[in-house]
């Protein structure tokens, strides 16, 4: 009897049209070549299926065919937004396997480069996020500020985007004359713009309304889903590889790990803002404490360089979370197996669809950017 009623009721229910919406790869709201298939009912998303692979180049396979040094151009291209952390993690792994100690000054320089890269990456992230909400003004300012960092990089390494500056044994060359002053000048300039950014972007009322309670992750969930970086820190977990397992000069400088408690998109962007301040602090301390000396330990001829058998897992804190590299050598002059554990892989393919379920279409890009998903990192 009851069943009959229920079927009757079902007949009366208004059937809404279920649409399939392709969000990307060709979509202005998509940063990077990535695609999400959305099943939509009205404005609600019923299901989100990420569809990666548009940037798959098979790096890990290609790297098996090239020798240890030739791999550097590949490594940095895995993540266009912050190539330095990629270079650093690969150089660290090679150094560990070949048992090379790097000079003290090189450690400081590497730290400075990594932090500058993090700043650039965060400014890019701010551009993407602001742009996503149709928030042109701070977006363009952030991009212009990022360009100053690229200019610094150009002076230091010769390249705007890809640097190939960090090599096993140290860094490619010493800092040019007056570079420290330029960095300091840039950092002071950025700090002086911070009130503007705060007013127009971070503390903007409408931005707050848009980002608050969007893409919310609970603390337990974040740990369970193996979130790292801002996603984890925005839920209140103080977790940072730079503190847990300090590499380079991170154990010699003082800095905080900014956290927020709410775990939503707004907390994540605030964590990013605070991290930029911490990065600036780290760079200033590094410049102050930097010792004199050589920056490069000679390594053997790259074409004859054979690295002893072994395996290692190294990790750094990139701007998007824990970046790991599992590197296996079988005693040859090429790696036997390279596997990058990239933060975006987990965030983009696993956490993103979970957060998108039940969200509104207006928030797809919002959630995606707040997770800091970088497409080439997923595909590799």
């Amino acid at each position, binding site marked *: 009897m009851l069943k009959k009623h229920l079927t009757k009721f079902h007949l009366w229910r208004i059937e809404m049209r279920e649409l399939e919406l392709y969000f990307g790869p060709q979509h202005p709201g998509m940063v990077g070549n990535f695609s999400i298939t959305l099943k939509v009912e009205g404005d609600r998303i019923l299901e989100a299926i990420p569809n990666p692979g548009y940037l798959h180049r098979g790096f890990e396979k290609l790297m098996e065919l090239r020798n240890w040094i030739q791999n550097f151009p590949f490594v940095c291209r895995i993540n266009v937004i912050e190539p330095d952390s990629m270079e650093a993690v690969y150089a660290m792994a090679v150094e560990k396997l070949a048992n090379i100690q790097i000079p003290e000054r090189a450690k400081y320089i590497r730290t400075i480069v990594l932090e500058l890269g993090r700043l650039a990456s965060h400014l890019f992230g701010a551009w993407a996020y602001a742009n996503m909400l149709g928030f042109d003004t701070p977006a363009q300012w952030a991009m212009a500020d990022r360009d100053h960092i690229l200019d610094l990089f150009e002076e230091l390494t010769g390249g705007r985007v890809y640097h190939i500056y960090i090599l096993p044994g140290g860094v490619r060359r010493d800092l040019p004359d007056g570079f420290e002053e330029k960095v300091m000048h840039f950092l002071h300039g950025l700090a002086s713009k911070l009130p503007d950014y705060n007013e127009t972007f971070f503390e903007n009322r409408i931005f707050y309304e848009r980002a608050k309670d969007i893409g919310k992750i609970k603390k337990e969930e974040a740990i369970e889903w193996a979130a790292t970086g801002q996603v984890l820190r925005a839920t209140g977990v103080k977790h940072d590889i730079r503190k847990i397992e300090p590499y380079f000069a991170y154990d010699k400088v003082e800095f905080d790990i900014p956290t927020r408690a709410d775990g939503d998109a707004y907390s994540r962007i605030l964590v990013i803002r605070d991290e930029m301040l911490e990065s600036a602090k780290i760079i200033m301390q590094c410049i102050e404490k930097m010792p004199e000396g050589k920056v490069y330990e000679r390594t053997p001829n790259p074409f004859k360089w054979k690295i002893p058998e072994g395996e290692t897992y190294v990790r750094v804190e990139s701007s998007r979370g824990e970046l790991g590299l599992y590197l296996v050598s079988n005693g040859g002059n090429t790696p036997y197996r390279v596997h990058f554990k990239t933060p975006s892989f987990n965030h983009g393919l696993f956490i993103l669809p979970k957060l998108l379920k039940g969200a509104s279409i*207006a928030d797809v890009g919002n959630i995606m950017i707040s997770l800091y998903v970088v497409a080439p990192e997923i595909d590799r």
Partner: protein
Amino acid sequence: MVIKIIEFIFSPFLAFIIGVLFLGLFRKIVARIHQRYGPPIIQPLLDVIKLFHQKGFSHGALFDLGLILSLAGSIVVILFIPFGGICPLKSSGGLLVILYTMLFLPLGIALSGGEGANPNISIGISRKLILSLGYEVPFLLILLSTMSFYRTISIVDIVNSQKNFHWTLFSPLFLSGIAYFMILPAMLGMRPFDIVSAPQEISSGPAVEYGGKYLGLFHIQHSFSIFIMIALFVDLFLGGGENIFYFFLKMLTIFFIMVLIHSVFPRLRLEQALRYLWKWPTIFAFLGVIISKVVR
């Protein structure tokens, strides 16, 4: 008679020029706020010229007709709006006719866009209709208050009674003016209310399938609607203008403020926009109606 005919041809043309100029100015001002040089002011005109030399894809008869309906609707509205002493159609039922004809603007786009199969269009159109539902309520109340304040439905009479700086904005009806000002970004489709054409969310919404000359017509329609919304504000609350120059200056001021608002706010979500539109502007507009009853 000849003057009348010239006015008929001249006013939509002028409206187009002003609208396109405003679009160009808009891009230039925004660029300057972004700390960059920006395109030349005539850039939108160049874009329109280019679009008319491109091949477009039609998606059926209604696709073309809807766009033409929307365009024709806006031209008719322009003929009813007095600007700077020019008003081709001085009919006594001005304001009501404008009100009804203005419905064609979103409706035509909705009809036209509905022909394309892209799901972004249907989402964009539903957004557009819901948003216009949001601002129609305060808009109707505002018109009602002005009509009952001046005891006339002729827009020409309203403009005439505001001569010698007796502007409605400085009369007891200033609350209605504020309400109109608050819903103006939504009517122009500017931020924080550019929900309809949000490129990052639904890749420019109703305009997704427009290309070539269809997009050109779409742009012209957009520039017309910019002209209509602002000219109506100037006519109703800023006392129109003695000549075209003053009228244009007033429009420019309003538009400039709109651009400033546009450039410092992100986009609202649809429900947030509705909540806003049905709160303060509606309250103000309602108070305006009460005031207009009390004063007269």
